[in-house]
């Protein structure tokens, strides 16, 4: 079963219906991923909506989302499958004295297999969206684990043989680019760089996510955030932080984003004290900052 998207605009509309705004680049890449059964590798700074893209895709396509959160030390047992050791032990104890040959075939069968996200994604009878989040966090060796899945949507389990996907999942990998991924992995993916949104796009996102915010204020929020991102910071404000900021302004009933209001609420947008000081200095807000 595939999705019913016939062109990138369909994708765009379907995603917009879930509240995720695309541009033609994102729409085209998602469309290709669906048509060519290729994984999407979404790379870009933290908090620009890479993970949200997968969530929106799942919703738009009406599929289950299977998520594999990557971290240092992730291994096969956590990503692919594991044998249910306790169950196997119980099985062995249950009929002591049985011939080993019978038992062996038995305890290494599917009912003793614990599915982890990757295996689950390809064995699912209904097609799913598979999100492999922050893949840059795993070691280079672990990346190799993913290659078989990304290539052919299959998993090889020594005791059982190769399990091939019943249905083809849409795969989204995200990376914050903290290290370069291996060529082998990149080669198998469609590459989608997701930068910080332009002022126009961020304004549109605000209109979508914080509709109560007056247009004038939204415009100013978007422009201010964009100016702040130009300043070299430890952690530039992400889209979700922009949204938080907009909501804060709403709650506080601030109608015009003047110097005082900005200076008072900067901490919503920036998470390091040095960054706040730097921005205040750069936008010449230190004069109004309370001493």
């Amino acid at each position, binding site marked *: 079963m595939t999705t019913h998207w016939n062109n990138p605009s369909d994708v765009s509309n379907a995603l917009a219906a879930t509240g995720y705004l695309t541009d033609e680049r994102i729409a085209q890449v998602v469309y290709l991923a669906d048509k060519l059964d290729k994984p999407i590798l979404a790379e870009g700074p933290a908090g620009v909506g890479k993970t949200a893209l997968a969530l929106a895709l799942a919703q738009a396509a009406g599929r289950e989302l299977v998520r594999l959160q990557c971290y240092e030390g992730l291994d096969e047992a956590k990503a692919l499958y594991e044998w249910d050791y306790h169950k196997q032990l119980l099985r062995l104890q249950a009929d002591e004295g049985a011939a080993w040959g019978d038992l062996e075939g038995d305890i290494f069968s599917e009912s003793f297999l614990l599915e982890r996200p990757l295996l689950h994604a390809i064995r699912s009878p209904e097609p799913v969206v598979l999100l492999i989040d922050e893949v840059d966090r795993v070691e280079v060796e672990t990346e190799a684990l993913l290659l078989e899945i990304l290539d052919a949507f299959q998993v090889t389990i020594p005791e059982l043989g190769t399990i091939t996907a019943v249905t083809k999942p849409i795969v989204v990998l995200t990376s914050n680019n903290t290290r370069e991924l291996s*060529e082998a992995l990149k080669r198998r993916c469609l590459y989608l760089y997701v930068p910080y949104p332009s002022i126009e796009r961020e304004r549109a996102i605000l209109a979508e996510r914080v509709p109560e915010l007056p247009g004038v204020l939204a415009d100013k929020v978007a422009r*201010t955030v964009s100016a702040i991102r130009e300043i070299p910071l430890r952690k530039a404000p992400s889209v979700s932080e922009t949204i938080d900021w907009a909501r804060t302004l709403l709650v506080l009933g601030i109608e015009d984003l003047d110097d005082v209001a900005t200076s008072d609420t900067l901490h919503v947008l920036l998470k390091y004290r*040095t960054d706040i000081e730097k921005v205040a200095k750069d936008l010449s807000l230190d004069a109004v900052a309370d001493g």
Partner: protein
Amino acid sequence: MGIPVSMVEVLDAASAIEHTDLEDPRYLKATLGATLIKNARHYDAFESAFDVFFGLATSATLPEETLFDGVVGQPGDIQASDSDLLDSLVDALMTDQRDELRRLISRAVSLYAGMQPGRPVGGRYYTYRVLRRIDTDELLARLLAALLTVEDEGEIDQRLRTNEAESLVQSVRDELEREVTARLVADRGPRQVAASRRIPLVEDVDLMHATRAEIEDVERAIGPLARKLATRLAQRRKHGAKGRLDVRRTIRRSLAHGGVLIDPQFRAPRTAKPQIVVLCDVSGSMATFARFTMQLTYAIAAELSKVRVFGFIDGLDEVTGYFGTDVDFADGLITMSREADLVRRDGHSDYGQSFEDMWENYADAITPRTSVIITGDARNNYRRPGVDYLDRIVERSRATFWLNPEPRRYWDTGDSIMSMYADRCDIVEQVRTLRQLEAFVERAALPTMRRPRIAS
């Protein structure tokens, strides 16, 4: 050189194009970008090439202007028409009329670029000629005035207004560049234009002569690069030789097997973490380069090993403390130049004095496990070379490397005494791009045997 594209990726692109709406170049760009370009750093170069090949059909639809009418305005009316042009530009920009902007730029190119058909140029010169006539500072000023809406604006408003004006000016520049490229393509065909345009990839940018924008790109690339190197280095160390046989533990284990030595035990190999000492010429001429070397060193240090950094001009001081994970790099540089004791006399590089300082004051920083990296152009201003001190440093260290950002052919010219130093070091490299720096780090940070010195 160039962006690596594998065979598989080309095939992917071909099958992806079947699912692409070719009417709209934006979709084609997305398709090719996603299938061929797998690194954000390469996207700019891709975009530039794409625009040359696919993006420029539009200017053919412009009315009446012939491609090379070669009319260069009469000297007398240039000033007047320039000012009018600026007004019209401001108008078009403020009311967001793309077509009008395009028409104006096209006209300006016809008038001022003085394009000559058939010349194998990349267009930068033509752009420059037009920009000489479109006074961008004046344009910025007029835009700033036009954008002013509130009377008593605060700092933020002012800042946002400036940003907006600047981005509008940039859009004029972009449009101009696009127009010039379009005409070049119409004249000589995309292949030739692409060949003469060649935008260097970030890893090939000349660090000594980088523009500000390029420097920003390079700095963004350093973090991931350093981590990639660090993982690779750590990996090689891990896969090194097994430790020696641990007799005591092996015999002990054998008790469980009735005294049969079935399960040999090994000592964990000693993982000697490399220690790095960097001596960095931070005099004026070396400043940009020093910056990159230090940034890369720090990024790697965060992952790998112990690093001490010393800056020198005609005096040497430890500067390790000025940088660190919680210090902004630019701030670190400022503190360093203010507080570190780098200048003793006149602020011209003195390698001899610096090596002497190093040995006299910080000899204990160098141990047989230390790799010493010296960066600088070895231009000693005809002063005492101080090779005796360098010799002692080299003798005590595990290995000594010298990175010189100058092209090899300039070594030993003028006041450069590179060979005198080079003979004493283990590896001497010309490093002026990230790519060369990467290659060097990989070579240098590997655990090598105690040096088999190559006789010079």
